[in-house]
């Protein structure tokens, strides 16, 4: 039998102290953590506002007698073909800053429409800068656009006035 057994008490005290501290910290963290929406989502909000602005501005005609650039791009673009005009314009709008230098925002854009024949929503890629990687967080910006275009499944010959949804996912490098 060991004569000096004080060491056992040291270990128990260590465990007890650690446990008390951790429990205390856990309680304190849970008690004082104030969830502020802007705290975690402020960057998302800024990015979303930027994307929405860019889509809105692209869907405003330059003059009263013209179509908007976004409408023209969708109408003229063959489905499934990467549209460089959209990519260049959209990238320029969201990355330009008033001071020198550019932002580093990536995006991927899809167009969704209602397939009348199938009775479901189809979508196709309009343009993208690169694929979203694992761990990257994106936000979504959308815009309904009226186009005069024949889409697959329309069941008619020739263009048709209809609404399509342009959807952009944006994220920063």
């Amino acid at each position: 039998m060991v004569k000096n057994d004080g060491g056992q008490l040291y270990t128990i005290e260590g465990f007890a102290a650690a446990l008390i501290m951790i429990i205390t910290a856990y309680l304190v963290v849970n008690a004082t953590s104030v969830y502020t929406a802007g705290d975690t989502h402020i960057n998302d909000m800024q990015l979303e506002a930027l994307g929405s602005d860019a889509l809105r501005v692209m869907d405003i005609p330059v003059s009263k007698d013209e179509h908007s650039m976004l409408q023209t791009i969708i109408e003229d673009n063959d489905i499934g073909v990467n549209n460089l005009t959209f990519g260049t314009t959209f990238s320029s709008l969201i990355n330009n800053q008033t001071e020198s230098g550019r932002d580093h925002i990536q995006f991927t854009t899809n167009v969704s429409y209602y397939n009348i024949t199938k009775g479901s929503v189809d979508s196709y890629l309009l343009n993208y800068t690169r694929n979203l990687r694992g761990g990257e967080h994106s936000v979504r910006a959308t815009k309904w656009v009226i186009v005069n275009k024949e889409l697959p499944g329309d069941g008619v010959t020739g263009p048709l006035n209809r609404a399509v949804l342009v959807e952009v996912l944006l994220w920063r490098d």
Partner: protein
Amino acid sequence: MTDDSGVLSIDFIVGFTIFLIAFIWVLSMIPGLLIGLQAYTIDYDAVAYRTGVMLVEDPGEQVVAYPYYPWQSYGDLEKEKVIRFGLAVSRDTPNILSQDKVNRFFCVTISDPDAGFGYPKDYKDRLIFGDYRFNISLLDKGQTLSAGDVLPVNMSYGNIRRIVKIKSNSNATIDYPYMANHSYIDNVDNVSTHVFSIHINNSKLLGEVIDPAYQIDPSREQMTINITDLEQLQPGVTVNLTAIKICTIVKNPPSATCSPLTSNNSYPYVDGSDTRIPMPATVNENISLRFDTQYFNDRISAGAGDIFIVIKFDLSESRPQFLNNTQVLPDFNNMDAETTFFNPRTGIANPNSTPFDYNYHPDNVTQPLLRDAILEVAVW
């Protein structure tokens, strides 16, 4: 061995290590606990966002008064009548900014209170609504306009970036080819006085295009009329711009009046001058007319559907074929708008007066166009 006082127990080391690990872990959580207390950047972001929304989506506000003047039309001596800044053309056109509002907003001063809006007080009272420092900048046509302080380097600040379009003002240029094509210089009378008139059909301008993004509205946005190439018409003759009269036609109840242009804010620019020139004035080459929107506003508010700008030129010698498209009746000093231009009672226009029509035809007028720009707000 019975005396073990100098020995460090393994049990003690284990226990103390566990304690230390837990202690360090808890210490590492302390900065996280303080995040909730460091909310200043969040506040700044919120203020920047709010400011951005007001600038981009709100047309601004002025004192309630009749006639209704838009805030950007108030000069520096009347700027207390501006209640809130906002650059949008109208509430229905978010992200579309008015050129006049942009020009007025970025007319900023830090010293002379009568030379623009004062930084920071005028901006804090009408836009920021708080004791913050700020910088508002606009990238337009490759140039950056700025109001506010220099951005801080070693501290964080809240910011928002908005993408906008700016609606340019309409303008018309009446040059020699245009005069020749429209018979403005075909008059054969050998006289020294020639009268040229311009028709602003306000009812038609507001009725033909109702979208404020593309509408020409003389009471809200400045229009510019350039008359150029005057030296080509009668070389060797001195040309005097003697007077300008404004005639208005009200259809209901029918009335027509003419009055001399007396507003200093609407005097013409002559030969590329930077300042407005009182009349009479000698003209060599060109005249630029840019009327104060309040001047039109007063007349439109009084029911004027048609406004005629009548310009009188006096030549040093009697000559035919100078700029002349108006049969002034009975004479310029006693000009009667009904007989000279249009009688609202009978609906009959004088066929011998063919004023230049400021309208939506692109051959006559360069229409309002929308161009891209970037607006950034930083607050700290």
